[in-house]
């Protein structure tokens, strides 16, 4: 069944204390050239049925209304999984 991916990030102007903690850990590991880390969310919605424009529009609306809170977060992208060229798993 097809999968739709929704990516959400905290708004750029907001502090991301969790990301900051990871950046601090990287620094302590001698990886100080990674100057900042921000942590967001990725949702994978499996769809029972074909993905057409109507379903994508539905997910975009859900992303803005529920998956993200647009007061504190931005929806970065909504796309079907098969349009992703390379995932981390496939590079190994």
């Amino acid at each position, binding site marked *: 069944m097809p999968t739709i991916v929704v990516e959400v990030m905290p708004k750029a102007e907001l502090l991301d*204390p969790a990301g900051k*903690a990871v950046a601090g850990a990287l620094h302590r590991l001698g990886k100080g050239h990674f100057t900042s880390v921000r942590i967001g969310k990725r949702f994978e919605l499996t769809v029972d049925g074909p993905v057409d424009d109507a379903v994508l529009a539905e997910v975009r609306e859900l992303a803005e209304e529920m*998956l993200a*809170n647009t*007061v504190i977060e931005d929806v970065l992208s909504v796309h079907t999984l098969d349009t992703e060229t390379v995932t981390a798993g496939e590079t190994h």
Partner: protein
Amino acid sequence: MMRIGVITFPGSLDDHDARRAVRLGGAEAVSLWHGEHDLKGVDAIVLPGGFSYGDYLRCGAIAARSPIMSEVIDAANAGMPVLGICNGFQILVESHLLPGGLVRNDHGDFICRDQRLRVESTSTAWTNGFTEGQEITVPLKNGEGGFIADADTIARLEGEGLVVFRYLDVNPNGSMNDIAGIANERGNVVGLMPHPEHATEPGFGPDTALAMRSGTDGLTFFTSVVSSFAASV
């Protein structure tokens, strides 16, 4: 006698304390369940603290979309007093009954302390028994209590007197303008991160200059709503 409903969501922690505070304030406490569409005819509602749905998605996000919230939203819009404490405040902003959002504390740590607050508005259903500018102490315990909103919303909250509580001494979570709690325009919906229900009975509240654990500043939230209800019937 006034009947005040306390809604229990999966992961609510302070619903028992909230019901106890309701009783100490002179009202009957009514248990309400998130999965029903039944407010059982209550006269006011408390959304208690805790970690509804394990804070999954965002704090309060899933609870805000639970069955009973459609009735809560209708009742709030019709003027029923609604108080959201901590996770309850997060549920209120996720329900769009109050503006803004609550994000992880700027220092990254969970915080638990007795917190001094200034009462900035006494023209709400839950604060009319305080005096304007009164300083109170109630417990505060949260990991994601930083209040944020865009500049227009902050200006509107400040300009229209909708900031109800402000942190004193220290800003414990990075909240904009030291905002600890806000109200809607009508003053029937109030949300705050600190926990008034934990400061309602001598022996179980914050320390005061007089005696350990003797602080009962939170009781006025509940006596306020009870007295305004008594005046209205």
